[in-house]
């Protein structure tokens, strides 16, 4: 009753401090942080590149500081403000080091990477490139999904010959890098008389790989349906086909949507590999603009075109997944 609020707070603080291990006490941490930053600055020459020894000591010092920050952040009792200050100083120091000592010519960034004065005609090339990128992506996505679904269903039927072939397909094209199969199809196959246009070579390579992944996705989805569902359908007198169509697939497709949309997003990204076989897609056009305009700006800005296309797609798939999750609870 006599105690004021302030006194109570102080009392609680005292009590809490008494049970802290020494390395978690404020004084040490604040002092340590200050010393850490101070010594980190001492190690570094104020200009030019650091010597190898200097760089090594900075890295070691940085790791020590990171550990210390970890200790501090792991303590739930510490005030949030102190934690934020610690995280922030770690981040600032990290990027500060990069900014100062990576050797980057920061004065050139704007004039080289964002030179909008030389973008005449490049926007049109982006549009054409994006169109081709989307054409490759959509054709490949549709075909992969058709084949993936078919192969996935076939794999669950338990025919040993079919399983052998589909298993080989899955193993082969999940192991083979996409760029390798694309280059093989476009540059090696003509020597044995198979000539595919660049566009269809890219589509073929993408379909071969992604249908392999999707076979596994669909198979897992179908196999996740409990045995009892199939028993109940068969007990009603539904044949194997009708059971698959009316009972198994509608449920399997729901569980399959998150991994499937994931796969389709990476398929859209992977279309950039078609650059190596001269498909006039976004990256190819950007690279051509670089030689045409003699500035890396088109290449840098093409990054934003990719991001502007894919980030909405990713967010849309995430929304779709969340809606489905709600749907299953209901």
């Amino acid at each position, binding site marked *: 009753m006599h105690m004021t609020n302030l006194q109570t707070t102080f009392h609680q603080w005292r009590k809490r401090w008494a049970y802290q291990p020494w390395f978690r006490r404020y004084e040490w941490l604040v002092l340590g942080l200050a010393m850490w930053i101070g010594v980190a600055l001492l190690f570094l020459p104020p200009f030019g590149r650091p010597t190898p020894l200097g760089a090594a000591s900075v890295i070691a010092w940085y790791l020590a500081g990171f550990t210390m920050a970890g200790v501090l952040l792991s303590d739930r009792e510490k005030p949030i403000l102190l934690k934020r200050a610690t995280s922030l100083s770690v981040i600032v120091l990290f990027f500060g080091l990069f900014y100062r000592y990576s050797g980057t010519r920061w004065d050139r960034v704007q004039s080289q990477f964002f030179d909008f004065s030389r973008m005449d005609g490049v926007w049109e090339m982006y549009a054409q490139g994006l169109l081709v990128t989307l054409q490759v992506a959509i054709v490949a996505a549709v075909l992969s999904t058709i084949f993936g679904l078919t192969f996935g269903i076939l794999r669950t039927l338990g025919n040993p010959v079919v399983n052998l072939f589909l298993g080989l397909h899955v193993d082969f094209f999940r192991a083979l890098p996409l760029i390798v199969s694309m280059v093989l199809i476009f540059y090696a196959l003509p020597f044995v008389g198979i000539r595919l246009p660049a566009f269809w070579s890219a589509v073929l390579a993408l379909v071969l790989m992604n249908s392999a992944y999707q076979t596994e996705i669909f198979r897992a989805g179908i196999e996740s349906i*409990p045995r*009892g*569902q199939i*028993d*109940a*359908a*068969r*007990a*009603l*007198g*539904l*044949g194997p086909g*009708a059971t698959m169509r*009316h*009972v198994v697939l*509608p*449920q399997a497709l*729901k569980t399959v949507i998150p991994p499937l949309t994931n796969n389709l997003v990476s398929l859209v990204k992977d279309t950039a590999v078609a650059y190596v076989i001269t498909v006039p897609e976004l990256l190819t056009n950007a690279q051509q603009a670089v030689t045409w305009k003699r500035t890396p700006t088109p290449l840098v800005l093409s990054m934003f075109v990719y991001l502007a296309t894919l980030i909405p797609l990713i967010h849309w798939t995430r929304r779709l997944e969340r809606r489905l999750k709600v749907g299953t*609870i*209901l």
Partner: protein
Amino acid sequence: MSAAPMIEARGVHKYFGGVHVLRGIDVSLAHGEVGALMGSSGSGKSTFLRCLNRIEEPSEGQVLIDGTVITDQRTDVNRVRADIGMVFQDYNLFPHMTALENVSLGLIHVRKRPRSEAKDAAASALEQVGLANHLTKHPQQLSGGQQQRVAIARSLVMQPKAILFDEPTSALDPEMVHEVLDVMRTLASEGMTMVVVSHEIGFLRKVADQLIVFDAGLVVERGPAARVLDEPEHERTREFLRALR
């Protein structure tokens, strides 16, 4: 009515790999009779029930439904199954469909009835099991007892010759058991042939005509329900009934 029994099993054997689960089962149920299968877990009663509509394929022996051998490889097993209802322990309703769609699925895709007619029949079957107010609900929105009654309606709507019940009340909370048993009792009184795997002694005493006790893949005792329950002859039956009390 024909003189042949509705359900008849002759020397049914079943092997799972090297394990001999059913070792020669003979069972015969007349039209409208209710047979109850009892026995400890692993005694083969559920496997035997599943052999009756070939959800499980018998390794040896014959099953006859209404005088027709259905274990012949040439029989159209889907037609046979359409005429035998089955109710499972875990209900096994289709979670992506409403109660009405669950019940009408068989009519539409097996009996090939027009959609509207099937929906009407399904609605009246659901009404029959007391679920007229839950037609558009999904299984997840129904209680266990309600789900099991939807499952019964799903079998019933096909107008089967017989219904197989595989422990229909084992997964239910005690207060929901009676609502399912009531429906089954009504069915039995209306002359439905039923085979029931169940340990609901009180229910079986009133409803079952024949009680068949399984042990280690063999029938060790059979007879009228009251007689088997009150004066069990076989030692295994006595042990089993004692354990139930």
